[in-house]
């Protein structure tokens, strides 16, 4: 299957570059270890044979579209990545007519392994109910129909603990955070030119790497993705100290579904829940 996907992507990329539809195709190529995929930028039709697709293609390539504003680009998207495309379209960060989406019905991706292919599928693929891209101009693979997401057992487990235990848990995580901001850099939804964490006036988060500052960073990072997180889980994957960031993201996702009946990135038109309102809604506050 992987070989067939690779062939279809290469053919499409060649056609797009030769026909001048796009200037660049963003896809995956085999990395220096000969196994794991890495992002590839192909500008020349002669180079399309670099492109591959297999179950190590974990990166969310939509992030790179933010660096190519105003330039015609094709991008390979899995199901989750395609939701990021909708997110950026709805937030007017990219133009639909400048993006050509090569959708791939995702087989699920595996954990990263150096020099060897891991056989462990990533956790996010277990939760995922969007293996088929929600938006694509060309689809590789057969679309599958899926049930809406079920509940998360680890979130329920966490919610069942006392506040004290939860506070202790997150304090421990904050102590481990080194604030490298890899989570932010990998996230397609984090594109502010001036991130609050780097502002000096006001200085929301101090420069020192202290647990309380790290706590603030992780809390607000999660909240800024509230109703916007498209569940690609790249933030958690790239975290060098393995913080369980997806717990926060998925808790917010749940709450957004409960309060606003909204799932991010499912359509290009639906506004994120926090930039709109209903006059007569009851959200359980101020009542």
């Amino acid at each position, binding site marked *: 299957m992987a070989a067939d996907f690779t062939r279809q992507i290469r053919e499409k990329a060649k056609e797009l570059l030769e026909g001048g539809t796009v200037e660049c195709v963003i896809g995956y190529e085999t990395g220096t270890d000969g196994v794991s995929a890495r992002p590839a930028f192909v500008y020349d039709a002669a180079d399309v044979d670099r492109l591959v697709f297999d179950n190590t293609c974990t990166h969310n390539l939509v992030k790179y579209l933010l660096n190519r504003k105003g330039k015609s680009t094709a991008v390979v998207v899995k199901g989750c990545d395609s939701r990021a495309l909708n997110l950026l379209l709805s937030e007017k960060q990219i133009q639909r007519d400048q993006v050509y989406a090569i959708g791939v019905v995702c087989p699920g991706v595996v954990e990263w392994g150096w020099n060897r292919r891991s056989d462990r599928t990533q956790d996010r693929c277990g939760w995922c109910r969007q293996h088929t891209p929600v938006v694509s101009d060309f689809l590789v693979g057969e679309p599958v129909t899926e049930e809406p997401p079920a509940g998360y057992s680890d979130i329920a487990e966490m919610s069942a603990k006392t506040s*004290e235990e939860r*506070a202790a848990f*997150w304090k421990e995580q904050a102590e481990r955070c080194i604030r490298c901001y890899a989570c932010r850099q990998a996230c397609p939804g984090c594109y502010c030119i001036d991130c609050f964490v780097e502002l000096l006036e006001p200085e*929301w988060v101090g420069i020192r790497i202290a647990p*309380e500052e790290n706590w603030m960073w992780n809390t607000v990072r999660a909240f800024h993705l509230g109703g916007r997180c498209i569940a690609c889980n790249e933030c958690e994957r790239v975290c060098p100290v393995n913080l369980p960031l997806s717990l926060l993201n998925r808790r*917010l996702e749940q709450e957004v579904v409960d*309060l606003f009946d909204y799932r991010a990135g499912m359509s290009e038109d639906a506004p994120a829940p*926090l930039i709109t*309102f209903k006059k007569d809604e009851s959200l359980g*506050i101020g009542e």
Partner: protein
Amino acid sequence: MSADNSPLVIGFLCNWCSYAGADMAGTSRQSYPTNIRIIRVPCSGRVDPLLIVKCFEEGADAVLVAGCHPGDCHYNEGNYYGRRRFALLRALLDFMGIERERFRTEWVSASEGKRFAGIITEFTDQMTKLGPRKAS
């Protein structure tokens, strides 16, 4: 938590309704606990979640956001946006170990001085019972 072990409550009051309501509480000689530190903001919709998270980071025991009643916002819709934001933020803070009760949103109009005093008294009592924040 202040030196005498009583809870520290930070209150963000909107200029047009709740701040005037607090003023009304004063001019009508209502008494309420001094645990609340009031910060005057133009609108409850101006209260960035960053401000609230920052309060908790810096050690506040509780945060109150008070604004005009829905439908009465001076800017027509500021408190509607705020309402959504605070509802979501409260769920996140709860998940991170800050009890739901510690972050409260109330609608207080300029004429509700007595009600404002009542809210602060009740909120402070509740926070005293709950005790200081744990593990932070």
